[in-house]
Each structure stands twice: as C-alpha cells, then as structure tokens.
C-alpha cells in the first residue's frame, strides 16, 4: 500500500467523519451531544487541512475554533442549563422536508457544475507547496494590512458589546 493510496484512504476517512459528525451535530436533540459532534467535525476538517499540508491553518482551526468557540458554546449551553432551560429541543418537521428538498435540489446543481467544470482532475502536487506561518504573517501585514486592522477593530467592538450585554442589572 504505497504512499498515494494511503493519503486517498486518509481523505475518505476524514471526509466520512466530518459528514457524519455534521449530520449528528444538526440532528441530535441534546445540546451537549450536538456540541461534541461539532468538535469532532472541527478536528476532521483540521485533519483535511493537514493533509493539504497547511499546518498553521490546522493549528488555528484546532486552537481557536475547536478550543475557543466550541468551549464558549458549551459554556453558554451549561449556563443556560444552569438558569433553568431544558437542554434539548424538538426539531421542526415540516421545515425539514422543505429544507431537505431545497438542499438536494441545490446540491444537484452544484454537483453538475463541479463535475462539468473546466479543470476536473487537478491533482494534488505536493512538491513545491509550502504554507508556513512566515509567508502568511508577511502577507497579512503588507498585502492585507487594512483588513487585518479592521478585523482588530471588529474584535475590540465585540469585546465591548459582549461585556455591555451581559452586564448585571440589564433588564
């Protein structure tokens, strides 16, 4: 089993796990199970990033996304649960059918487009591609400096807003 079949196999495993975890995250009634399957999804996507040898992104994904955001969500769930909300919900059945119909319909379109697109069998040429934090850092600070700064302002604003929102005494 040479090196390429291994990477193919790895891709399929990761793809299957991410689809499975995404489905369970959406259709689980219990929030905790849903949050946990979401973490699994994040990790499998990080794996895919690694497979495309983008280590910085995978790290970012794992650290910020899986570690930060989902922890925040879990914290939120527990706090709501603490304050008395029940931790499960019933799904909307009628919208399920409609949404399923629309998504399958649109998936069909997208797939037709993808499979008939101009470059079907572009291979993953691993040689010569490197994406290191140094390259990303440089481009962040010269080419995309403006959006970088706007982002920082955005985060500051979110900081203030969240603290203002959850301040004690807000009726």
């Amino acid at each position: 089993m040479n090196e390429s079949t291994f990477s193919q196999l790895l891709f399929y495993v990761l793809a299957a796990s991410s689809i499975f975890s995404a489905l369970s995250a959406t259709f689980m009634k219990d929030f905790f199970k849903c949050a946990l399957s979401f973490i699994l999804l994040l990790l499998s996507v990080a794996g895919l990033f690694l497979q495309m040898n983008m280590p910085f992104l995978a790290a970012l994904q794992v650290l910020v996304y899986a570690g930060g955001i989902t922890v925040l969500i879990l914290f939120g769930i527990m706090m709501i649960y603490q304050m008395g909300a029940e931790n499960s919900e019933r799904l909307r059945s009628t919208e399920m059918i409609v949404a399923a119909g629309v998504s399958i319909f649109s998936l069909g379109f997208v797939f037709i487009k993808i499979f008939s697109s101009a470059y079907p069998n572009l291979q993953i040429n691993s040689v010569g591609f490197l994406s290191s934090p140094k390259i990303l850092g440089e481009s962040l600070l010269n080419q995309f400096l403006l959006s970088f700064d706007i982002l920082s302002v955005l985060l500051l604003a979110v900081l203030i807003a969240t603290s203002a929102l959850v301040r004690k005494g807000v009726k």
Partner: protein
Amino acid sequence: MIELSTLLNLAWLVPGLPFLAFIINFFFFRKSAWITSRLATLFMAGSALISWKIFYTVWTHPKDFLVTAQNWQDYSSYFEWLPLDPSYQSAIQKGFSINIGVFLDPLSVMMLAMVASIATLIHIYSIGYMHGDPGKARFFLYLSLFTFSMLGMVSSNNFMQMFIFWELVGLCSYLLIGFYINKKSAGDAAKKAFIVTRFADFGFMVGLVLLAWVAHDFNFFTLSTRVDELSGIVKVGLFTFPFLPMFSLMIFMGAMGKSGQFPFHIWLPDAMEGPTPVSALIHAATMVTAGVFMLARCFPLFHSGNEMEIIAYIGGFTALFAATIAIVQFDVKKILAYSTLSQLGYMVMGMGIEGAIVAGNPATGVFHLFTHAFFKALLFLGAGSLIHAAHTNDIRQMGNMGKYAKITSITFLIGTLALCGFPPFAGFYSKDAIIHAAHVNGFHGLYILGTITAFLTSFYMARCLIYVFCGEYRGEGTPHESSFTMTFPLVVLAICSIFVGWVQQDFTIFLSGGQMTMEPLGMSAYITSIVIVILGFGSAYAIFHKKVISPEAISKAFVFPHFVLEKKYFMDEIWDYCIRNILLVVSWICATFDKKIVDGVLVDGWDYLTHASARVLKQTQTGVLHTYIFVGLTSTVIFICTLFIN
C-alpha cells in the same frame, strides 16, 4: 345747414349727458333723492333737446344724410376701443379692432330723438310716482345708466358697439326689474329676465364671433357691400352652411331675446315686477324695440330672401300668441305687457315682410316702432297712475275710475284707441300699414293672422276698459287723481299718439334719405280697421258689460282652452322644466363627477393605492426570526443555483 362736425359733437352729448348725470349722482348725491331726481331729469331734458335739434336738421335735409358704404366715415366719430389684431391688413381697412363712437343716420337720429324724449317724460313722471320710496335715488341712478346705454346702442355704427350696449341695457333691465330688493318675486323676475336674454344673446355672440372669422369687420355699411362674398359656404365643425342666412338667423336670435319673440318672451310679463315707469320706459318703449332696431339697422345685410320670411312668420305667430293670452289676464300691467309682445310681433312681421321682397322698405316696421313707443308708454304710465290711485294692479278691484281720475282716464282711452288702430289715431297708420303690406306682397297667411290679432287687440283692450271704467268702484278707499308731474307726461304723450300717425309719408322719405316712399293707405284699409275695432269693442261690451254671454259661462264652456290661456301655454313651466331638469341635473352630474371621479379616483386614488400596498407589504414582517432566516437562506441558495443555469 349746420355742417356735420358740430352735429357730431352735439351727437356725443346725447348719450354723454345721462352718463354724466349717472357719474355725478353716483359719486356725490347718492344720499339725497331730491337732488338726484332733479339733476337726472335736467340732464335728460338737455339730451332730449339736443336730439330734437339733430332730428330736426336731418328731418329737413333728408337728401344730405343718405349714408352709403363710401361716406359712412364722415357721418361718425369714433375711437378705437379694443385693438384686436393691429397687424391685420385687408383691402378696405388697416388693423382689425372694435370701435365705439357716435353715428348720424336717419334711423339712429330718429331712435335717439324718440328714446330721449320718452325717457325725459318718464323721468318727470317717476319724480311723482316714486314719491316717498326709500330707493328713489338708486332708481334715478339706474334710469340715467339705462338711458345712456340705450342711446349708446342706438348711435352705434358697428355690430360690436351694439352688442356692448345691448348687454349694458340687459344689465339695467336686471337692476330695474329687481328694484324692490326684499321682494323675492322681483329678484327672481330680474334673474329670469337676465338669464333668458342671456340665452338669446348666446346666439348673437356666436353670430358675431363667426362674423369676425369670416369677415374680419363689424361695420354695417362695409359689410353691406360684401353681401355676395359673405353668402359663401362656410364649414364649422361638422356643419356646412351658407354664412349670411345663418348669420342673420343667429343675430335675430339675439333680437328675439330682447324683443320678446316666441320662445324667449317669458321674461317680459314677469318684468312687470319692476316699478311702472320702468315697465313704461324699458318694457314698452325703448329696450324691447332694440331687436327691431337691430333688424332695421342691418336691413341691407338681411336682404336675401327666405330667412326673412321665417322672421316674418315668427313675428306674426308671436303677435297672435301674445294677443290670445292677454284676453284672460286680470292684472292691468300684464295685459299691457302681452299687448306689447303682440305689437312687437307686428313690428318684426313688418320687417320680415319688407325684407323678404326685393324692393323692401324698412320704414313700415320702424314707423310702427316709432308710433308704438308713444301710445304704449302712454298706456303704461296711465296704468301706473291708475295703480297709484287704486293701490292695486287687479282690474277687478277697479271700476268707474273715470269719476275719480279724469285726466288719466281720458289719456288712457286715447292710448287704447291708438293701440287698436282706430283711424285718426297713430296706431292705425303704422299697424295697418304692416297688414296692408302683408296683403299687397302676397303673404295671405300673415294678412289673416294680422287682422285676427287686430280684432283680439281691440277685444282685450275693450275688456280692460270696461273693467276699469264701467260699473262701480270695487276697491277699498277712494282713488284720487295723480299729481301734476304724473299727468303732464300723460297729456303730452296723448297729444303725440293722436298726431304722430299723420307724418307717415314724410317719415318714409326721411328714413330712406329721400329714396323711397310708402303709398298712402286706401279707403279699404280705413273701412276694415274701423269694422274690426267696432267688432272688438262691441263683442267685449256684450260679454263683459251687458253679460249677454257672461265671461263665467264662456270659461265654463271652453274649460280647457281657458285653462291653457290661463297658464300662458305652459311656456314658463317648459322653460323651468328645461332649466331645472336638464341643466341642473347635468350640472349636478358634473359636480359629483368632479368630486367623485376626477378628484376621488385621480387624486385620492394614489392615496388609496399607497395605503393598500402598505397594508399588503406589512404582512411580511411576521416578527418570527425563523421566517426571516428561512426566506433569507433559501433565496440565497436558489439565487446561487440560478447562477449555474447558463
């Protein structure tokens, strides 16, 4: 012979003096009745004197006053009132405009003299008649305004000036009829008079407007030279018609309004609401003859055959029609009003007959106008002093007035005889001239019509005499003879009514500027008219005095004709029905259409539209987060798919 320029300057004074009186009275003496009446009468007398002087000079030199299309300029002095189109050039005139001024020609000079003199007499009469009336100052104000506009109309040399003063005369008749302001019937009668004449003036105005389009000129004399050019075919919208005949009928429509011909006569009997001097001046002598004057003035224009016959027949029919109604009237002024209508019918018939034949001479109709003014004014003033004496209009309450009002009765008798055409008196010469002309020129229908009307005239006047002078006085209180200022005009007018008829021959020579003469009336005319008058008086005497067949029996025998005559052939009701049901309904439709459709739909419609669309769009804001997300995401998904369709 005074040359023309001084005559023209004098002519300016004739209408000028009453106007001056009006201005002075209006601005300075409106408060005091005494000064206004004396001043107005003084100025009126002055203007009458001047008009007699001009009349005398023209009467004595008819040859020099033959006005034709070439020399009308030096017989008139005028100023440009309204320059319509200065850039218009044509063969005979530079610049198309409306001129107002004074004009001397036998017809207008005769009318000036007649109007001025009768107006003076009536001014004197009304000093006495209006004694003690609070609005006396206002009355004399209107009288001088009326005489100014009447004299202005009479001395006009073009259609527009005539139309201008025509309307002013209509205004003065509105003001004078509605003189008793708090009497509702007076106000309605004034309104009715003005609106009915306004309907007729619509025809006049349309005629003038089309004349402006076809001929670009209003002067009578320059138009009379272009008769053949004007009788060409003209296309207005969908109708094509020869211009001149249609034009003369339209102009005659205006005349029908003012001179009370058949459909437009309903306002004249109601105009008796005004004080009696007004009825005497306006609705007997002067204004109502305006239509006949207009026919005479543009006689050369109308000289083209069949439409004059139509006019003649309308005149004849009105004469008979009015005479029949007069038989059943009990108000003395109403009887005289209907008799005026029938005499006007005579004059129009006279003009129509003369117009129809080739060598027509307008003098017959105009002479009747001349004489009629005198004896009809006399009759009205006499009636006025009778009313003044008996304090009622109704002849059934009067009786044996001869004993109380001596002079009034005698003058009233003279007037009646003149009206019925008893030979020596004025009426005979003029009225029978018309009947004779009808007989000579082959209008046998009109001839018979004329004789019947003559008989009816003498019948109803005799009936009025019997009611007023025979039997015992039926009213309350004792009537008294009127004061000198009222009886003096009666006497003067009585004298005129006797002698004015004898000048028939010279009148025709004077009027036609020495061209035409009217052959004198033969013995047959004398006999027929005497027979008719005697028949009329005899039958009236038999029925009303001796009661051989009492009037009640007759009315019982002919119930329906009596009822129809009583109701004046329902003409008032027809007019009222037309106005009320057709015009007011149409105007109601227009008003509601405007309010509901044009305003409602076009303007408020937009307002409704915005409200309705807002109400619909409001539904989309359900407030539920899910619907927003659902719509948002689904539409993005579908939108992305549409991108991939190509």
